[in-house]
């Protein structure tokens, strides 16, 4: 299972406590994870990616394995540690605004 950690506001929106465990069909990429996440929690549509362009919202970042993967191709395979569930895929709210 893929492990996903949501920022606090999105955990509140989805009423999730702790991590989300997702079954994602290979290849495991940003896009396939987010597709599975939004299928499980439709209320997240538009809050992580733009409805129309499917681009990451400007003040969100994607971290995994101590790397910032935000600018990577959303269709690139993620590290094996994410695909195996050893490491979580983190969706992080940027330190910006007030």
């Amino acid at each position, binding site marked *: 299972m893929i492990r996903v950690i949501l920022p606090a*506001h999105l955990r509140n929106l989805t009423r999730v406590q702790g991590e989300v465990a997702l079954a994602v069909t290979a290849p495991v990429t940003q896009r396939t994870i987010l597709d599975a996440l939004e299928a499980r929690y439709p209320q997240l*549509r*538009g*809050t992580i990616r733009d*409805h129309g362009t499917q681009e990451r919202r400007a003040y969100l970042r994607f971290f995994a394995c101590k790397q910032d993967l935000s600018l990577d191709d959303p269709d690139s395979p993620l590290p094996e540690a994410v695909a195996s569930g050893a490491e979580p895929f983190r969706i992080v709210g940027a330190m910006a605004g007030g």
Partner: protein
Amino acid sequence: MSSIRVLVGTRKGAFVLTSDGKREKWDVSGPHFGGWEIYHLKGSPADPNRLYASQSSTWFGQVIHRSDDGGTTWETVGNEFIYEGVPGTHQWYDGTQHPWEFKRVWHLEPAQTDPNTVYAGVEDAALFRSADGGQTWQELPGLREVKGHLWAPGAGGMGLHTIVLDPGNPERMFIAISAAGAFRSQDGGETWGPINNGLKSPHEIPDPQAEVGHCVHRIAMHPSRPSTLFMQKHWDVLRTDDAGDVWREVSGNLPSDFGFVIDVHAHEPETIYVVPIKSDSEHYPPDGKLRVYRSRTGGDEWEALAKGLPQQDCYVNVLREAMAVDRLDPCGIYFGTTGGQVYASADSGDSWLPIVRDLPAVLSVEVQTLP
């Protein structure tokens, strides 16, 4: 006995304030959606327990919530606002054309008779309607065909912030946009025309005949007189008695005719309220004194209402959505400030008390009078 529910949207969440008909003791519930900007929340006239809330943030975008129990619990509904067809462009700050881009919902207006029908005024300015309780939204694109390429954002963005539905004619509605002006539809929102004749904005628009481009801040209507509208413009307070065909200024003796809010007494259609703000750059009350001004003559002649309001060192603002009235007798008047206070008057404005003092900056205030 009737009771009152005040719905307050703030920079960091929503609050629900409740009282019995005496309006002396208040319970405060919240924050709901803590940490999110709540531009507006409003109840359905057809079902007071059906509420809609616009929740947004720079990080996570737009979310719409709906409650069926008066705000105790909420569920997420649709947040996909897609402009019809090719969105086109509007005027940008530098005079160039800029693509239409959805940013947020400024105002939610439930329909008069159907709790599942609700209108949304959005930034960049457009009007959307949902007929399924907010699950899906469709634009009414005829509005942007009214010289939309000449509309321009004000300092706060190009938001459609005012939606006024004619209670006697479901086909007629009025909206206002900063900075495009006021518009009217007489066919349920399919087609629109500008209603800005008589508005004068010489500092912002050199053309005195300009049909669009005016920075309208708020429009209010008394339900018994749907052809009389009152407007707080960027500068000037105005009224029309022919549903917007012609406006005339009624600023009279106001200490400043700049401001954001305007509303009408529940039982006296010629009694109106504004909160004068010193200027468009200072955005605080004149002389550090927070005063509501009341006209019992539909404008022109105004009296200051200060009892219970801070009369020194007060430098808050009162934003366009942040005033409302209840339907009790005597009429209750409510407004919220950027300093986080919500003030209430249970005697038509003669005296005021704060319901709460220390909320986040208040963006919107709506009132429900419950049986």
